[in-house]
C-alpha cells in the first residue's frame, strides 16, 4: 500500500479518519502490534510447593491423578498508554503546510486508534491554556472518539513544562503502563529526561517521539531575516548563510543527544520528520518498539 503523504493526510479534516487511514496503512504492512498488555493467560503446571496459594491448585488434575499441581499464569491484562502531547508554541511550525503540531496530532490519534483496537486503554496528558489537560486511560470506541476529538481541539501556544507533565502522566497510570511523549523536546531538556527516567524506574514503558520539521532541521531560510521565537517571542536578525552550518551542527548534536540519552535509559526513541509519511514513520517506531519488547519479554513473566 502506498504511504500517505503528510500533505494529503493533513488535508483531511477528520482526525479519526486520518488515524484509521494511518493504522490501516500499518496493518497492510503485516506487522504485529508491539503493545503487550497483561492478562491471566494459563502458561503451565508445576508441582505444588508449600506456601502456594491454594486457589491456584488444579483440582481437576488432583482428582484424576492424586497429585498436587499448581497452575502458573502469564500476566496478560490490558495495558494503559498515556499520550503526552506538546502543545507549546514551538510546535506550530511551519506556519504553512503540515505543522509539527498537526503531525503530532496525527501520530497520537493513530497510536490511540491502534491501542484501542487491540483492547488496551489510552489516555492523554498535555498543557492547554496554561493548565494541565488530562483524559484518563480507557478503552473502547466511545472513549477513542472522545480522545481523538480532544486531541483535535488542542491548540498551540505559550510554553510548557514537559518534566511536570510527564511526572503527572506517570502518576495517573495506576499500574504499570506506557508513557509516549510526543514533542520537539526543546524545553527543559534535563528536566524532561529526569522525569522520563523516573517513570521508567517506576516500571512504565517510556517512548520519546521527537517531532521536527524539515526546515528547522536544514535551516534553509534564504536571505537575511528576523527570526521570532514562537514561544518566547524573542527576535533576532540573522543571516542564515552565516549561521546555518553552526545551527545544523547544534541541531544534529541535539537529536543525537536525545537518542543516546533515551537508549541509555531504556527509553524507546524515534525521530519524526514532518516531511515523512506518518504511517511509514509510525511503522518504523512500532518495529523498534516491538524489538525492544522482545528483548524484555522474560522479565514480564509473573506467577499467579
Amino acid at each position, binding site marked *: 500500500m502506498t504511504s500517505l503523504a503528510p500533505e494529503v493526510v493533513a488535508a483531511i479534516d477528520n482526525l479519526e479518519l486520518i488515524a484509521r487511514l494511518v493504522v490501516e496503512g500499518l496493518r497492510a504492512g503485516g506487522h504485529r502490534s508491539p503493545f503487550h498488555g497483561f492478562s491471566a493467560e494459563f502458561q503451565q503446571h508445576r508441582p505444588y510447593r508449600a506456601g502456594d496459594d491454594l486457589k491456584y491448585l488444579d483440582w481437576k488434575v488432583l482428582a484424576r491423578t492424586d497429585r498436587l499441581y499448581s497452575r502458573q499464569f502469564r500476566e496478560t491484562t490490558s495495558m494503559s498508554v498515556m499520550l503526552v502531547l506538546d502543545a507549546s508554541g*514551538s*510546535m*506550530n*511550525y511551519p*506556519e504553512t503546510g503540515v505543522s*509539527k503540531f498537526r503531525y503530532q496530532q496525527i501520530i497520537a490519534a493513530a497510536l490511540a486508534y491502534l491501542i484501542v483496537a487491540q483492547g488496551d486503554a489510552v489516555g492523554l496528558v498535555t498543557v492547554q491554556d496554561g493548565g494541565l489537560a488530562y483524559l484518563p486511560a480507557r478503552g473502547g470506541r466511545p472513549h477513542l472518539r472522545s480522545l481523538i476529538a480532544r486531541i483535535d481541539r488542542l491548540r498551540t501556544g505559550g510554553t510548557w513544562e514537559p518534566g511536570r507533565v510527564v511526572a503527572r502522566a506517570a502518576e495517573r497510570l495506576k499500574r504499570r503502563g506506557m508513557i509516549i511523549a510526543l514533542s*520537539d523536546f*526543546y524545553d527543559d531538556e534535563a528536566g524532561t529526561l529526569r522525569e522520563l527516567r523516573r517513570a521508567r524506574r517506576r516500571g512504565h514503558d517510556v517512548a520519546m517521539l521527537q517531532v521536527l*520539521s524539515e526546515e*528547522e532541521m536544514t535551516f534553509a*531560510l534564504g*536571505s*537575511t*531575516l*528576523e*527570526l*521570532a*521565537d*514562537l*514561544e*518566547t517571542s*524573542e*527576535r*533576532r*536578525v*540573522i*543571516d542564515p548563510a*552565516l*549561521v546555518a552550518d*553552526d*545551527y545544523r551542527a*547544534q*541541531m544534529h548534536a*541535539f537529536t543525537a543527544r536525545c537518542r543516546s540519552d533515551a537508549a541509555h535509559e531504556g527509553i524507546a526513541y524515534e525521530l519524526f520528520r514532518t516531511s515523512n509519511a506518518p504511517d511509514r514513520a509510525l511503522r518504523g517506531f512500532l518495529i523498534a518498539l516491538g524489538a525492544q519488547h522482545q528483548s524484555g519479554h522474560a522479565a514480564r513473566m509473573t506467577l499467579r
Partner: protein
Amino acid sequence: MTWQSPLAWIGAATIAAPILIHLLSRRAPRTQSFPSLRFVGRAAAVPLRLRTLQNVPLLLVRIGVLLAAVAALAKPLFRESRHTGPARIGVARAVIVDTSESMHRLMPGGSSLLDSARRLAATLAGEVSGASIAETQSPFDQVAGAAAWLATRPEPGALVIISDFQRGTIAREDLAALAAGTAIELVQLTPAASPGTTFLVAGDHGQHAGRVDFGATETRVRWTDAHAAPPASDSIVYLTTSAEQAAARAAERAARRAVPLVLGAAPPTARPLVIVSPRAPERPALLRSARRISAPWMADVALRLSGDSLLAEAARDDSLQVRDVADGLPAVARSQRGEPAAFVAQGVSGSTPALLVFANVHPGSLTSAALVAAIMRASRTEPRIEELDPMTIPSDSLRAWTRVVSATPVTQAGDESDGRWLWILALALLGTEEWMRRRARRIAA
C-alpha cells in the same frame, strides 16, 4: 572645460551623505517565526544598523547623482571657446587691431604681428563682459567709432589698440574723442629684426641695385650692384608681332624709368605674367583659353592694376588699336569712352597657369608703357616703402597716453552653462537608483 561657479564643488562633500545613510539606516528584514532560537547563537545575530557597505553599486549610483548635481551647480562650460569664466570683469572693451602692411612682419616666434594681434584681441575681448573688435589699416580713424560704441555701454569703457605703432598710427589728439572715464590701453607689438630688403633703381643709365637695412634709430642703404640686370622684366612675357617689338621695348624702357624705385625681388617665377599685344599671333588662342581669375595672387594683381592711377590716366588719353572684349573678364584700364584698354584673365603660359593681360593699345604707346610699369608695381611682394618705416611712437608717449580705470567682477546670473546635461545625467541616475532599490527589495523578499 571651465567652471563658472567652482565654489559649488564644496557641495561635493555631500557624497558622504549616502554613505552615512547607508550605514546608519536600519534594515527592515522580513520576520519569520521559528520554533526556537536556542541553536541560533547571539553572536551570529546581524546588527540592524549596517556596519559595512552592502550594496556598492547602489551606493556608487547615489554618489553619482550627487556629483552630477554638484557639477551642474558649478556651471560647467564644456567648450573653451565660450570663455565666460570667472575672470570676466565688468568692462566694455573696444579693441582696435592695426592691419596695416607693417603688421605682416614676423615676430621673434615666427608668427606675424597681425596674427598675434588678432589672438590677443580675442583674449582681451573674452575677459570682459562686453567687447568689440575692429580691424583697420588706420587705427586713428576707428577711435571715434570706438568711443561712440563705448558710450552706449553701461559698464566702464576701455579702448585697446594693438599695433606696432609706427609713426602716424595714432596721436594724442585722436584719443581726445574718448570720454574721461574711458581706459586706454596701447599694446605695442615689436617685430623681429628686419633682414633688410633689396631695391632696384631704373634710370637713363641702366639699373642699379641696392639694399636697405632698417635699424632702431637709423636706416642704412648700400648699393650692391651698379649695373644689375632688370630682374622684373624676366617674369613678364611680352607677346607681340616682330614688327612691333622695337616699339614694345621702347615702351618697356619708358616703363622702367617710370618706376624708379622697386623694392624687393622680382615677382616669383611661380607667378608668370603675360602681356598680349593686339596683333600678337598667339592672341586668338589665348583669348579662347582665357577664363575667369581664380588664383588669389592673380586677383591681387588685377585689383592693383585697376587701382593704378597712372595706368588709368594713360588709358584715358590714348587711342585703342583693337576693341576686343571678353565677357566676364575684368578690364583694368578703360579708354575715355569706357572701352577696355586692357583686361585680365587666367590662362596658361607653357604648362603653368599665368595671368594674361590683353592690351587693346599699341605696344609702343604710352598706355603700354604705363601698363608695364603698373604690372611691375602690382606684382611686387614687399610692402610699401612707408610701411617699412622702422620709426615708431616712443614708448614713453604710449605710456603717457595710457589710462587705467578700475574694473569690477560681474555677476554670472545670465551666463550660459552646460549644466543642463549634468542635470539630465543626475535624473537618469536617480531613475537607475530607484530601479536598483526596487530590484534589491524584490530579491530580498
